């Protein structure tokens, strides 16, 4: 057992997969000797750079992602990083409009085993923070992963690299160097599409992702002192969504709060809420509440930025709200 940061855990997962499978290669801007933005590739160059398995590219997100799609179609397993989720729109055509549909459109002949890494999230970096994951959730054929802990980050990255579909992998910048977690010495993987109950509780279900899982857990600790036991469900993979785990939790508690950092309107949390309303309406004891940013661009100034984001206090308010019986 060792203690690794989220960033270290990601890198360790990638390195392990590269040792196992020679078809895995990395592409990105400044990922070579420099180590990648926020040290996202730290140490990898020394082991894999000279073997030609790391490709430093010009600033060309569309061609980076498009070429990785092409390489994946031909049997390689690229892991491409476009630095930040803020640049996602530059790669949307090859990723969402081409790659995502290839398995279906080719009637099962074309596989696109690739991972698109991107950093995002409000944190100390104070730039490139936009959470655009909800755009991708609407696209059939894409997997969307958002880990919340170092343990999950490593295990999910390994599965994403082994997956035969395009996987969008969101790495939260506030978690990157901010938290450490226990990583077992032996190898492990975490399957995509499986949520994790991060805290058990019988009173309210809070479904969250990435940074919001931590706010939910903090809120749960405080509420526990008042005798309110919150169950925190970490989706881990937003698409495909683990409906069973969410439904099992809601059937137990009868109350649901959904939290994410992406905008509320049209956000992926609406899908969680709608799914529960469709499939477990009679189990609900109160209306569902979503906690997510207002429908405005992300304000810069610290106080405005804090008002914009969900936090522990907002999650606690939402939990209290759903505790009122119909």
């Amino acid at each position: 057992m060792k203690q690794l940061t989220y960033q270290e855990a990601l890198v360790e997962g990638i390195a392990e997969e590269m040792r196992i499978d020679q078809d895995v290669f990395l592409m990105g801007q400044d990922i070579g000797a420099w180590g990648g933005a926020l040290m996202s590739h730290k140490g990898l160059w020394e082991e894999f750079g000279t073997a030609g398995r790391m490709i430093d590219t010009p600033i060309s997100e569309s061609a980076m992602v498009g070429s990785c799609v092409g390489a994946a179609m031909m049997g390689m397993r690229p892991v491409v990083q476009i630095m930040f989720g803020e640049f996602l729109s530059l790669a949307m055509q090859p990723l969402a409009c081409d790659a995502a549909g290839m398995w279906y459109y080719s009637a099962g002949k074309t596989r696109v085993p690739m991972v698109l890494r991107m950093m995002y999230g409000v944190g100390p970096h104070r730039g490139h923070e936009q959470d655009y994951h909800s755009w991708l959730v609407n696209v059939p054929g894409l997997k969307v992963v958002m880990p919340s802990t170092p343990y999950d980050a490593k295990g999910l990255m390994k599965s994403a690299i082994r997956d035969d579909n395009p996987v969008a992998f969101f790495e939260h910048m506030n978690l990157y160097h901010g938290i450490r977690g226990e990583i077992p010495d032996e190898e492990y993987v975490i399957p995509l599409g499986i949520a994790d109950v991060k805290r058990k509780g019988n009173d309210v279900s809070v479904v969250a992702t990435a940074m919001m899982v931590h706010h939910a857990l903090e809120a749960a600790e405080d509420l526990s002192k008042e005798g309110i036991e919150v169950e925190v469900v970490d989706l881990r993979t937003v698409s495909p969504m683990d409906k069973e785990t969410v439904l099992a939790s809601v059937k137990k508690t009868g109350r649901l709060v959904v939290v994410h950092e992406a905008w509320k309107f049209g956000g992926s949390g609406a899908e969680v809420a709608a799914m529960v309303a469709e499939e477990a309406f009679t189990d609900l004891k109160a209306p569902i509440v979503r906690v997510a940013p207002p429908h405005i661009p992300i304000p810069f100034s610290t106080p405005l930025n804090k008002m914009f984001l969900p936090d522990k206090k907002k999650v606690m308010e939402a939990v209290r709200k759903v505790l009122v019986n119909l």
Partner: protein
Amino acid sequence: MALTNEDLLAIYRYMLEGRMFEAAIAKFKGNYHPAEGEEAVIVGTFYNLRNEDVVVPHFRGSIIVSYMRGAPLRKLFAGIMGKDTNYNHGRWRGDIWGPPELNIIGMFSGALGASISLAIGAAMAAKLKKTDNVAVVTFGDGTSNQGNFHEAINMAAVLKLPTVFVCQNNQYAVSTPARKGLGCRSVADRAVGYGIPGVEVDGNDVGAVHEAVQEAVKRAREGKGPTLIEALTYRVLGHWIADPATYRSAKEVEEWKKKDPIDHFQKKLIKAGVLTAEKIEEIRKTMEEKISVSLKQAEEDPWPGEEWLGADDVFAPNKLGGVAQ
């Protein structure tokens, strides 16, 4: 490598058969994008490549490339119609997409440009796997203004990826003439900006196109990097079959029709004693028969059943097994 008489005949056949095939499609599909007049670029570029080379054809002429790589007419007709007997069981339009098993990367969306990035990715895979296979991609003059063109060619240049970029310049992007869409004189001139060779070639001369492409293929196989070729030709018909093309003069069209690549090549081959009027008649008759039989079969072929709707078939099951579902 000099072309043998068999090569010359095969090239002629593909051009003529390609035109006849597309004419048959045009009869039942008014929104088809015909390549009439551009066959020299299509056949000259894609003739004589290895099966292992990856071909990434422009949408205009894509179906001729599938035919050249061995796809049967019946399946291709079925792809245009959306019948079950096509390679993808009617899940995706067959006019701009070719079967992956023939190492064709077709278009998986209607948006232009992404194909060029996919092509350099295929070239990257060939290089990473330490083969000397190449990727050959064609695209229009209009597509050469799209961001992917610039990003992908620059990246192929700096990474020395074995790619051959061929601009099938038919002088029109829908209704926009190349002179209004391009700031440069020739698409080949853009190669200077990427530090790679730029070659201009007469796109109505199939021999010239073939020679230029083969030279670029050789260069790519030797690890010397990509080449950008502009093959200047002309879109004789509308953007699609039913397009009245009122945005250009009849005189302009007539002038270009006189430069028809098939007529031009046919005369050359007859003069050289490689082709005879009888042989032409035989090729025509055989193809007419093939088209009529295949078309009838495709018409009678079944539509895809509900099993191909595939609501649970959006993700590939993982070859590596159990862990990552």
